[in-house]
């Protein structure tokens, strides 16, 4: 029977595309060590010139927010409309602002 501890751990893969964008999560790979995870990430996720830089990080190291707490975490931001530039009315003839 399969023993989860016998499986190579899972790594999350982040790729930075050309043009200086931030690294973006693209998927995951299994690998026994970090070097292998990089190789597997390269061979799996950059076969079509998708990237110029790779990050891998053990999936077990990720702490995710609890979906059950989504309201507590994210709803309070909803009424902070004054954080957005469109909240402010500036007459049309005022330029460059």
């Amino acid at each position, binding site marked *: 029977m399969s023993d989860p501890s016998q499986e190579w751990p899972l790594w999350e893969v982040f790729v930075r595309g050309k043009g200086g964008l931030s690294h973006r999560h693209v998927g995951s*790979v*299994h*690998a026994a*060590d970090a*070097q*292998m995870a990089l*190789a597997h990430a390269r*061979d799996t996720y950059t076969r079509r010139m998708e990237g110029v830089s790779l990050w891998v990080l053990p999936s077990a190291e990720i702490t995710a927010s609890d979906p059950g707490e989504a309201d507590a975490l994210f709803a309070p931001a909803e009424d902070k409309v004054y954080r957005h530039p469109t909240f402010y009315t500036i007459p049309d003839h005022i330029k460059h602002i």
Partner: protein
Amino acid sequence: MHALATHALRLGDDALILGQRLSEWCGHAPALEIDLSLANIALDCVGQATHFLALAGALEGQGRDADRLAFHRDVMDFTNCLLVEQPNGDFAQTIARQFFFAHYQHLLFERMQAVQDERFAAIAAKAVKETAYHAKLAGEWVIRLGDGTEESRARMERGLDWMWRFTGELFAMDEIDSAAIDAGAGVDKAALHPLWDARIGAVLAEAGLAPPAPHRPVLGGRIGRHSEHLGHLISDMQFLQRAYPGATW
């Protein structure tokens, strides 16, 4: 055949036969991710083969293109080194072959990208990046398998031992190599040998593996004297072209 054409042919045959061998793994590797890695290396090899064989055909000037050369020659006209035609064996044996060959190819292309002949230099400049990765990947696996378990260590040793006798041929020089150097298209392979030894030795040391016992080099591939394995490989590879002469695909 023109010396430079033969020079290109040898480079192309090496890549072609190794690519063919590696592609045998497709769908059968020890882990899904490894399957993808081996296929990437195989694809690089097929690409290199296509470029070098096309160049060989052009230099020969008899109207043979890369496919004609790959699919319409018999064993004695293949000029690849014996190392690349060795069977895959287990994963350790495949890694041993890849490790030895990729380090050789990398050293070779590092120099070839700077030769005068732009045709060879251009292919080498592209391939050197590929082989850098092949050498790194294979080296990491040599270390993992050498250091891993008792079984993996024994298998890695057997794999290295199997392939070792064919490594001398990689650095053997003959009149074709000399002519290629004179024409500004070749590399002094003999001079690469000590560098290769050092690179191989460093990885083996990290893996805790002793270099295989010295063995008299087995030679012959460059002049068409191959192992028994190659005939089977090419009968498989050339089946359609042989069964349907003149057909296009």
